[in-house]
Every structure is written in C-alpha cells, then in structure tokens.
C-alpha cells in the first residue's frame, strides 16, 4: 500500500529536479546568447532549496528532519512542495538597491509562512482525498475479490440449484466480478444448440477455406460484375468491420492480438448460420465475449445468444417483428415517462432511431465497456426484457437534459451517449423502471402486440 505513494513521490521529485536542471541550463544558454560574453548572474537563479535553507537557518528553524532519510512520508513531501513558487519573496534585494527594511523583511517572512501553511493544508487535504480514493478502491477491489470467491466457491459449483435464489440474484444485479463473468454468462446463456468445440473447429475450417477460395478468385470477381450476393458476401464485410470494432482498444485491429480471433468467430458463424450470415453489430457482441471467454466458448455463447428470439428478430432484420418490439417498448415508455414520451412524439423521435444501435450491439458500442458488461450481466439473467428496461433507464437518467432538446440534438445525444455514464445512477434508474403495464408484464405485452400487429407503433407503421 505504501509502495505506490512512495513511487509517486520518487517519480515526482525526479521530475522536478529534471525540470529545474534543464531550466537553469536553458537560462545559462539564453544568457550567453543574449548578452554576448556576459555570463548569467548567479543571483536570480538561486536554488529555491538553498533559499529555504538560508531562511531556515535565519529563523533558527534549521531543517531538523530535512536530511534524515530518503524514506519520505507525506508530511515530508509537503515540506518540500511549495518552495519553488513562494521562496522568491525571501530574496534580498539586488546590491545596487537599498536593503529591505527589517519590518518589510519580517512581513515577507510572515507572508511566506502563511503561504506555506496554506499550501501544506491544501496538500494535506489532497493527500487525504487520495488516501480516501485509494481506500475506496481497495474496498471495491476487496468486495470484488470476496464476491469472486462467493461465485467461485459457492454459486458456480451449485449453479442449477442456486442461480434463481434471491441471494444470487441480488449479487448478480451488483455486477459479476470480471474473473467469473465469462463463466456466469456461459452458464446463463446456456447451450441449447448443443454446439461443441469440434463443431466450432469444423465451421472455422470451412470459413477459412471459403476465405481462401474467394481470395483466389478475387480479381476475377471484381472485374466481372459482382452481383448482390457477392457484394453482400459476409466474409468481405467481416474484414471491413473487424478493425472498426472497439478501435479505441487497439486489440481487434490488423496486427492486434484479437484480430484473428474475432475474424474466426464471425467467419465460423457465417458457416454455422449461412441463412443469417454476418450482420453489422455482431462484431461488437463477439468482441465483448472474446474479452471474457476462450475462443471456442465465446463462439458457443455467441451462437446461443444470437439464437434468442429478440436477437434473431433483429439480426435477421425481420422488420415487422422489430416494429413489434419497438411498439412494446413504447408501451412501457409511455407508462414510465409520459412527459418525455410526449416530447419525443412531438419531435417525431421514434425508437428505431436510437434503439437499433443499442439492441444490435447490446449497448457495447454506446456505453463504456465496463458498464455495458454490467448490463450484459443482468441481460443474461433476465433476457430481452432487460435490454428495453435499460433503454428506459437511460431515458429516465437523461430525462431532464432530453426534454430541453430538439429532434436533432436528442438524436445526436442518444446515438452518442456521454462518455461518462454514472454506473450506480444508471442502475438506480433502471431499477426504478416499472416493467408492468396494466398488470401485464413485458412478455405479455409483446405477445399481444405480436398477435395483433395493428396495435403496433402508429408512428413506425407504414
């Protein structure tokens, strides 16, 4: 625990010294150039540390602990800190001017002391703040650590018996520790499709073969007219999209450590489900899984996740079914946030404008990755409903900002959410969303709308 602060200190003092050195060199240089042979005066560039020492000997407060040890504590650090900025006023006047009156010198000394005291206070406050932050982080890490232990030792070994228990569900809501996240996701998503590692390898081999053969035929295919099937060719699109997946992480791009893994999973999927193929948005989902699971397991989770009814509807771009989901969403939107709903309606801001990105990428593109992972946690627990509940939570969180905006600014805001979405606050807002409408739950509302599409969103219906 002390190590980082010590390190910090060492680092800083080194840096400070370096800066000082270089500055004095510069100064000397400048002196030489500007004044020909006149060497720079020693006086004005007095080392602040020397001034401090002079001052301390003058005031008889000689550095009692100044030279003691290199093991610096925080206070020591503080003694040192404000010098460079304030010691100047302690200097004697140049020789050609009358000396400072004793009174003035005393005043300056007092002022200096006050400044030092204030700076110390400030530094102390900051140090305390840092300490508190560190403590909080440690506490958080500890709680994550103990949660990981609970998941590993108690919950995972008894998964089927415990996964629906109140305690586990509560723990789940708080976020799954990253070390067990992949395992929990895998278990929660399940493997209805009974995909084995062998099957993944077969699909992958087929994808690679297809890739090779199209690469070999590429020049021909390009010069001849390439029909829509060729242009839509999933494998080509995958190549274009991989490096555009979480570019800021720099791990999926050409040459990055996960570039080939992402390519493999997406390619294998197009061979596993040629009827679905590659659809934009998939690369983000696969990438998040890769960050939490080994390749083959990531593929299994990926295929099973996409096989869920809502994901199938979206990735097969089943337009009318998507509209049904949007309509169900609007039912709960109106119920939960009637004012904002009316505002959206007035501005013709339909759910397809912002929900498509959120649902297709399961928020991994629009929310910070750690927060998106927490959304995934509960999505794995609660299913599709939670995706729409999260959307309502976001709208609820930003309700006040949104009500003051016009169409284009709302659309821009929602398709490009702020970089810092406060996690705890968002989850509080999600928790506050009521997922019942006239005593009907999400699934029931959805079912009714599916049976009777005429009752779908009036705005989106064409």
């Amino acid at each position, binding site marked *: 625990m002390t190590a980082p602060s010590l390190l910090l200190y060492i680092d800083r003092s080194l840096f400070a010294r370096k800066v000082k050195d270089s500055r004095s060199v510069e100064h000397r240089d400048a002196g030489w150039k500007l004044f020909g042979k006149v060497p720079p005066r020693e006086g004005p560039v007095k080392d602040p540390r020397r001034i401090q020492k002079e001052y301390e000997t003058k005031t008889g407060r000689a550095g009692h602990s100044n030279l003691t040890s290199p093991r610096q504590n925080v206070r020591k650090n503080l003694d040192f800190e404000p010098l460079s900025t304030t010691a100047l006023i302690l200097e004697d006047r140049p020789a050609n001017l009358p000396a400072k009156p004793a009174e003035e010198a005393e005043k300056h000394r007092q002022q200096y002391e006050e400044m030092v005291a204030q700076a110390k206070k400030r530094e102390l406050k900051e140090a305390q703040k840092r300490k508190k932050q560190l403590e909080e982080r440690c506490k958080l890490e500890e709680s994550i650590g103990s949660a990981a232990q609970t998941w590993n030792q108690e919950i995972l070994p008894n998964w089927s018996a415990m996964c629906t228990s109140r305690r586990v569900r509560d723990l789940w809501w708080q976020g799954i520790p990253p070390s067990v996240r992949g395992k929990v996701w895998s278990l929660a998503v399940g493997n209805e499709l009974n995909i084995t590692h062998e099957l993944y390898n077969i699909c992958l081999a087929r994808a690679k073969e297809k890739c090779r053969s199209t690469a070999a035929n590429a020049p021909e295919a390009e010069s001849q*007219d390439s029909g829509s099937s060729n*242009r839509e060719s999933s494998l080509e699109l995958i190549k274009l*999209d991989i490096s*555009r997946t979480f570019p800021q992480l720099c791990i999926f791009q050409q040459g990055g450590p996960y570039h080939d893994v992402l390519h493999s999973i997406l390619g294998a999927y197009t061979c596993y489900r040629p009827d679905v193929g590659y659809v*934009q948005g998939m*690369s*983000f989902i696969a990438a998040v899984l890769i960050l939490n699971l080994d390749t083959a397991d990531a593929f299994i989770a990926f295929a099973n996740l996409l096989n869920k009814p809502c994901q199938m509807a979206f990735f097969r771009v089943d337009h009318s079914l998507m509209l049904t989901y949007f309509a169900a969403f609007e039912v709960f939107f109106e119920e939960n946030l009637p004012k904002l709903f009316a505002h959206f309606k007035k501005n013709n801001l339909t759910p*397809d*404008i912002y929900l498509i990105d959120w649902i297709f990428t399961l928020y991994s593109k629009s929310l910070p990755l750690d927060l998106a992972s927490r959304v995934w946690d509960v999505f794995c627990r609660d299913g599709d409903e939670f995706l729409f509940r999260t959307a309502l939570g976001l709208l609820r969180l930003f309700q006040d900002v949104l009500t003051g905006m016009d169409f284009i600014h709302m659309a821009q805001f929602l398709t490009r959410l702020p970089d810092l979405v406060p996690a705890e606050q968002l989850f509080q807002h999600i928790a506050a969303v009521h997922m019942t409408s006239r005593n009907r739950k999400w699934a029931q509302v959805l079912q009714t709308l599916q049976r009777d599409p005429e009752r779908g969103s009036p705005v989106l219906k064409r």
Partner: protein
Amino acid sequence: MASAGKEHLYKVLVIGDLGVGKTSIIRRYVHHTYSHNYRATIGVDFALKVLRWGADDTVRLQLWDIAGQERFGNMTRVYYREATGAFIVFDMTRPSTFEAVLKWKADLDSKLMLADGRGIATVLLANKCEQGHPLPANGLKMEQFCKEHGFAGCFETSAKDNLNIDEAANFLVTQIMASEHALLRRAAATDTVTPQLDRRRRSDGCVGCLK
C-alpha cells in the same frame, strides 16, 4: 426573390456501401477531425452543420449517416422520409462500391420523390481519392454517368486530406435550394422568371467533376 435573414433546415442523407467513409466525411465536415478508425455505424448517426449562407441566411444541415449494410435496407428506408438532399458515397479503391451506387440511387428515387416528380438533389462522392486513381484514369466518364443517372454532380473527395468536402456540401445546398425554388414556383404558378431557373437548368446534368 432574395429573402433576407432566412433560416433553412435541410435533411441530408449520407448513403453508400459499408466502409466507404460516410462517417469520416461527416466528421471531417462537421467536426474538422479525421481518424483511421471510426466505429462501424449501426442504424443511423446524426450530425448538424450550421452554415452562413449568402449575406445573412442560415442553413442548418441535418446529416443522417445511415449504416451501409444492404441487409438493413428495409429498416433504414424509414430514415429517408422528408429528406431534401443526399450524398451517395463510394470508395475509389473498391470498384464494387461504385457498382452499388446505382442501387443506392434507385433505392432513393423509389422512396423519395418531390412534388414535381423529380428525385431529390443528389451528389455523388468518390471518396478516398487520395488513394485511388483520378476518375478519368479510372475509366469512369463521370459527367456522362451523372447525366444519365440523375446526379446533380460528382466530387472526388478525401476525408483524410480534407479535399472537396466543403465544396461538395455547398454545391448540394445550392442544388437543394434550386429545387426548392422550382417547387415553390410550381406551387405558386407564377409567371415571373427568376434567374434561379436558368441556374437550375444548367445544373440539371453534371456540373463537372471537380477535383
């Protein structure tokens, strides 16, 4: 009929195949930035560009950056509604994206039509021109192509090197205004002939491919 201090709001679509640089062009145009790696657009993204126009008019361009995957077609067509202008973008280094241009144009024309039966003002952008061969060397007779297929004009652009993007946008705005004027005149059925008519006539085909 110079209207002083008027504010114009235009919805402009930016469409074209996946990865041709639609987002890059918009980012360059609106935010004056460029990055090698923008995230793939899913659904639609938005940007707003406010232009001073003439002495004291203001033009607000609502740019709709629409995902390029063909599969999304059905879904993203809803976004075409009430657009007054469009950029169709292709990537000069990938011939297949040029072949797709006509599909995008046909799609646009089938979904959107002005009151006089004409399509909305559409400008073709040949992006990534810093990497591709210049169009004539590319074997593309762009002027002819634009005339035949109803593009108001064509520009070779580079979002990376900031080439021709402002020019293309200004050109599109003049085209949008011209068709707006034409429509207004049609609606009013007035007998005055304004200079705009000539300008519109002249720009019916391709105004030239400006590099």
